[in-house]
């Protein structure tokens, strides 16, 4: 029945009755190999079908952004009040470090005057910075009772002891060295993935560009806060990386997954985090399409494994006077689907076609999104050509 409807629709709107396969997936494309059945998430979701398109500047150069490169000159450490009363070692690499101590729930609140720093038994000068209230007023969402100080710039690189005589409960000590040359860099190899895919994070700890032979640990953290350790391996050339096959955890908490990295070398610590979207394969393109060159419409059959609102989006490239493909329009279409087969029709407006531009066309960055679970399901750099 659904196939019949699709054929009927094609007869109404599409001159090319025969569906054609989508272009072969590229190396960085994300194409689910199956669909899963999940319940519809709770929440308010649009049920009406919506379609929208707009013109693009044909001179624009579009490219998938590379994954974010995280750079860190800071680390965080959880400590007990008893440890802080006795003294906690802090290794600094540059003048002007900021030390922030935040109380956990139930821990004693602090003021900057409570913090003491010493090196080899000699007190080190600390400068006052903004109070917790002043930081909150500035938009930095610190806990009440957080104390922050700056280490006097005359203090050299080395090991210090942080002491807080009135500490009670648990705290997070955050050390940030804005002027340090010791930097941890971490970059995931992708912005998005489907459960079962493997994500790899490259890790590099360096001092003024010189690689530090340090150690690193990694942690995979899901949006609901669950975590699992991830092994960090060292290649023959000394490069560190962490790879993890994403488990099929059907978390209902919105948000991104993270691969957090904790590195140390030359007695110094650094933490960094990478973030990426992870999808359960709730739907996928069926792998074919039909098109109407006159109306600039592209019909995309969809297989839904789970109820939800699914959106197809794509960028129309048209051949310019220079016979080169240029981006000319963007179209989105979304509708609610129950499990089974459905159809989404990208409706590019011919009025958006710049003068001198025409066939052949390509739909690039063809994507299928799950709007109810906020995940990109399928991403094809080149989707269709007609």
């Amino acid at each position, binding site marked *: 029945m659904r196939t019949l409807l699709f054929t009927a629709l094609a007869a109404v709107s599409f001159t090319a009755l025969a569906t054609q396969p989508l272009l072969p997936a590229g190396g960085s494309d994300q194409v689910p190999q199956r669909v899963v059945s999940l319940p519809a998430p709770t929440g308010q979701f649009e049920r009406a079908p919506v379609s929208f398109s707009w013109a693009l500047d044909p001179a624009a150069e579009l490219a998938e952004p590379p994954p974010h490169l995280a750079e860190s000159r800071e680390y965080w450490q959880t400590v007990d009040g008893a440890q802080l009363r006795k003294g906690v070692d802090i290794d600094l690499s540059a003048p002007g470090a900021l030390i922030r101590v935040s109380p956990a729930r139930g821990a004693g609140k602090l003021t900057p005057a409570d913090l003491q720093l010493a090196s080899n038994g000699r007190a080190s000068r600390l400068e006052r910075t903004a109070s917790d209230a002043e930081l909150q007023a500035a938009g930095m969402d610190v806990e009440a009772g957080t104390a922050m100080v700056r280490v006097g710039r005359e203090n050299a690189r080395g090991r210090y002891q942080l002491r807080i005589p009135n500490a009670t409960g648990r705290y997070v000590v955050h050390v940030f060295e804005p002027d340090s040359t010791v930097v941890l860099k971490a970059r995931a190899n992708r912005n998005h993935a489907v459960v079962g895919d493997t994500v790899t994070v490259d890790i590099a700890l360096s001092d003024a560009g010189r690689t530090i032979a340090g150690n690193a640990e990694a942690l995979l953290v899901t949006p609901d806060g669950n975590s699992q350790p991830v092994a960090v391996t060292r290649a023959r050339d000394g490069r560190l990386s962490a790879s993890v096959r994403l488990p099929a955890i059907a978390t209902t908490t919105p948000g991104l997954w993270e691969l957090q990295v904790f590195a140390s070398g030359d007695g110094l610590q650094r933490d960094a985090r990478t973030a990426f979207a992870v999808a359960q394969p709730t739907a996928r393109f069926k792998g074919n399409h039909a098109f109407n060159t006159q109306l600039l419409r592209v019909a995309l059959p969809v297989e839904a494994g789970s109820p939800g609102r699914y959106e197809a989006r794509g960028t129309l490239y048209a051949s310019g006077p220079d016979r080169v493909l240029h981006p000319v329009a963007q179209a989105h279409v979304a509708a609610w689907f129950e499990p089974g087969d459905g159809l989404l029709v990208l409706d590019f407006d011919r009025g958006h076609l710049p003068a001198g531009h025409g066939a052949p066309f390509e739909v690039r960055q063809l994507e299928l999104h799950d*709007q109810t679970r906020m995940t990109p399901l399928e991403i094809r750099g080149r989707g269709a050509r007609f």
Partner: protein
Amino acid sequence: MRNLVYGLLLAAASPCAMAADVTGVAFVHGTGNQTNAYQDYWQPTMVNSVRQGLANTANYVVINCDFDQYMWDSRAAGCLAGQLSSFISAKGITRLVVITHSNGGNVMRWILSNPTYDSRYPNIINKTVRVNALAPSSAGTPLADAVINGNVFESALGWLLGYKSDAVRMQQVSWMASYNANNLYGTSGRPALPKPFRSVVGSDVDSAIWDSDSYCGGYTENVGLETTQNWLNSCSDGFLNCTSQSAAGSVWFTDKNRTAGAEPLSHNQSRRACFTLDVILRNDVKL
């Protein structure tokens, strides 16, 4: 059958032209759950100065939504869409100028980037002529990373320091990079937004106690921003790097190029009537 009806609907003509233009302006706040943004977030001096640029000075709306949520949340973008739709409908607005501050720029950019997420979005986009994004956190802020980190590496014990808002999580630098790559438009390499998104970039913070400029918008806020600048580049408004503020759309202007006395706009001052910012915005809504 549904698909057939849907296909036929897609074949229908697009909306026809409207009658004489009616310009309105909307003020969209940043992170936080606002119930009286007119008094608390923008303050009357700013709002009442800007709306003097309208032919009908009553054609303005100050948005009050819960922007502690993720940008797409019904309490964030959903609420914004509801209040903008009501404003457009009640006042017969045909040209909407949207003025956002900070994370409000992300919520508005969500609507512009995801027109099919909500059936109210297309009408809002069609009526919008431009977004004047004051200090938008388009690429996030390291300050969000600073307060979020330390919360999760003892997840067996639960969130150690208490759960930060989804809006703060979302504005971590790595998270915004992912949302910009997957869900939002207007950043480098991504398709352009359907309507202009122009940022006003704040480039520095003055908090000297002897300098009267430090008191515009609130001295306490500026003192805190002077400290938070430590996490940021030399060009920042105390909360956001200039690179984040200019990551999406186009840069309308950087503060010192247009403000009175070439004063910088701290992150707190870019939502207040400081150094003729209100006059610049007032003149813009006349256009």
